[in-house]
């Protein structure tokens, strides 16, 4: 009788997919925990919005995307970047403000991106990414591409004008975009029922004659199936949609928020009882994946996160003499030649120095 390697990935394709998604979910959880520790050790600055508890919604939605599809998100974006395949080193280095961060230390936690993976940010103004995602979908239509855009937003964004304007444009222009509402029940500290006259957020799609669905955001397979169906309709029939994934964030709004002023410990504990990570692991075990294999996977991921932190720590900060790099396109240096310091009439303390036009 042949020996069975209990640490090998499962062969059954359905189980294998969930197994790989679990790996990504576990990566996000451990990454966020590491980010919180590093933030508290003052190696990460600015705002740092963690997504622990939202892994099934994040990974399920991204798993439904094809390679050619595009992703645009708000600022709680570490999980989306990782799910889309951005290396943890590049994400952690960005949080550390280092050269090999995915935005070269210019963006930080809220402005992750990876154009090579179709991930166009990481946007920090609530709702601001919606018109942009809509325009990307317009561009896909103009060039006749069979691609779609996933635009992630939080429940707090649905009361912005940009939400209404974007949904309306997507509907009247028949654009291939799925607006993925990650409803974690609170916009910062304001509960959805206190903020939204129609707290069944997916129902708002009806105002634009658009498909609207709600799924259990803690159920990986349910999220993936719904996203997949809506993306396919967007690609094939140019029908935009709203998908509301109801989930819960275990941590505060950001690392600076304990998350207890507006919700009780009991409530948080209650949600931790159906932690999507634990649920997905149980699902895999129920489908015959040995616990040893999952333990081994978890150890691998923990090592991976440690390596990401070590990489970020060792990476160099961006050189100060390239302060303005990226701000303007190549060729702009000449346009600014008659304004910059060093030019005969430039004022020395007005900053344009440092890679302008590159």
């Amino acid at each position, binding site marked *: 009788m042949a020996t069975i390697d209990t640490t090998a990935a499962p062969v059954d394709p359905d189980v294998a997919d969930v197994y790989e998604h679990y790996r990504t979910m576990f990566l996000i959880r451990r990454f966020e925990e590491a980010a919180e520790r590093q933030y508290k050790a003052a190696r990460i600055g600015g705002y740092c919005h963690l997504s622990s508890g939202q892994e099934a919604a994040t990974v399920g939605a991204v798993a439904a995307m094809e390679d050619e599809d595009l992703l645009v998100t708000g600022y709680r974006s570490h999980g989306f970047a990782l799910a889309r395949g951005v290396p943890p080193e590049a994400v952690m280095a960005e949080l550390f403000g280092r050269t090999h961060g*995915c935005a070269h230390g210019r963006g930080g936690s809220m402005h992750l991106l990876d154009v090579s993976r179709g991930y166009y940010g990481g946007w920090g103004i609530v709702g601001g990414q919606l*018109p942009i995602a*809509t325009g990307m979908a317009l*561009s896909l239509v*103009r060039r006749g591409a069979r691609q779609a855009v996933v635009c992630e937003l939080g429940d707090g964004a649905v009361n912005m004008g940009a939400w209404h304007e974007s949904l309306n444009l997507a509907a009247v222009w028949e654009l291939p975009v799925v607006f993925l509402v990650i409803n974690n029940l609170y916009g910062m500290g304001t509960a959805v029922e206190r903020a939204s006259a129609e707290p069944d957020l997916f129902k708002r799609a009806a105002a634009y004659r658009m498909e609207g669905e709600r799924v259990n955001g803690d159920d990986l397979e349910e999220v993936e199936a719904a996203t997949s169906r809506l993306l396919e309709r967007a690609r094939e029939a140019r029908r935009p949609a709203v998908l509301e994934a109801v989930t819960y964030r275990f941590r505060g709004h950001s690392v600076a928020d304990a998350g207890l002023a507006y919700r009780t410990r009991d409530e948080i504990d209650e949600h931790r009882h159906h932690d999507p990570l634990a649920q997905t692991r149980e699902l895999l075990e129920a489908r015959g994946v040995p616990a040893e294999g999952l333990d081994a996977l978890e150890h691998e991921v923990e090592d991976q996160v440690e390596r990401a932190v070590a990489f970020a720590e060792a990476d160099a900060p961006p050189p100060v003499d390239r302060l*303005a790099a990226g701000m303007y396109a*190549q*060729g*702009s240096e000449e346009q600014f030649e008659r304004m910059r310091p060093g030019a005969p*009439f430039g004022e020395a303390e007005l900053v344009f120095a440092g890679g302008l036009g590159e």
Partner: protein
Amino acid sequence: MSGSGVAVAPAVATTDAAGAETMTYREALRLAMRQEMERDERVFVMGEEVGLFDGSYKVTAGLMDEFGPDRVRDTPISEEGFLGAGVGAAMLGERPIVEIMTLNFLLVAMDQVVNHAAKIGAMFGGEVRCPMVIRTPNGAGNQLTAQHSQSFDGWFAGTPGLKVVAPATPADAKGLLKAAIRDDDPVLVIENLPIYKEKGEVPVNPELLTPIGLAAVAREGSDLTIVSHSFATVRSLKVAEKIEAEHGVRIEVVDLRSLRPLDVETVAASVAKTNRALCVEEGWPSYGVTAELVARIQHACFDDLDAPVERVGMAEVPLPYAKELELAAMPTEDRIERAALRVLDLAA
């Protein structure tokens, strides 16, 4: 620092063998868009009433018939939405020209302009660009009143990440709009309502552009430099003629054309020659374009100045309706003339 020894703006060809045609500022803008749309499939126009209606100010008249509704796209009244859609399309490599009916309405899309378009290059570490054009007219007059008579040029010109141009002539309207469309960064092209109907010679050669970041000496002189842009240049040129006729002094008018990048060198070289400066704008001067100019001039030309730099702009009130009040608020030729005579020590 002295202004001596610095070259004035390099000469840029204003016409060539292909010749020039007389046309209005509005027609010159349309010619620029038509030429660039013929040249580059990625260029498309969108905005309120740009298509079927032929444009609120008829700048895009006929373009929908010529290029179809996909490339001349009518939008709902939804500035934040469609301007942001332009940002998204530009990030994927398109060359959108977003028309905003007037500068006043750009305020409802301010978040997309300042917090999004302007940030993309730097905030994402140069990984993605936003090559878009926003076209919109500023200006006051015709009793349009408080909410429709504003010039916020300085707000945008003060924003790193944006480029801002503001042509004063039909030739520059064509040349700067074309340069903006070909530019790889977000460019705000500030047009002007009263100038739309003004006529001028416009070179027809599609490759003749007005470089971004280069001012023009619109009128040469030796006794005073007036620095202005957009409609304030049109007014200042008239004042210069009148003062020369009446007082025999020669006023140089520097037309900025670009506000960001700002051609400080041409301004300073002129002031170093005339030793006197007056800055004129259509907007409110406090914290405005003229405030920036005065700061630059005092630094660049401290030893050259024979008189304090003065400025003229919109009276700092929301524009009133009554004709008499509106006129009193505007930076009219009378007010520019009075200020110029003060700087020249010729005031009665």
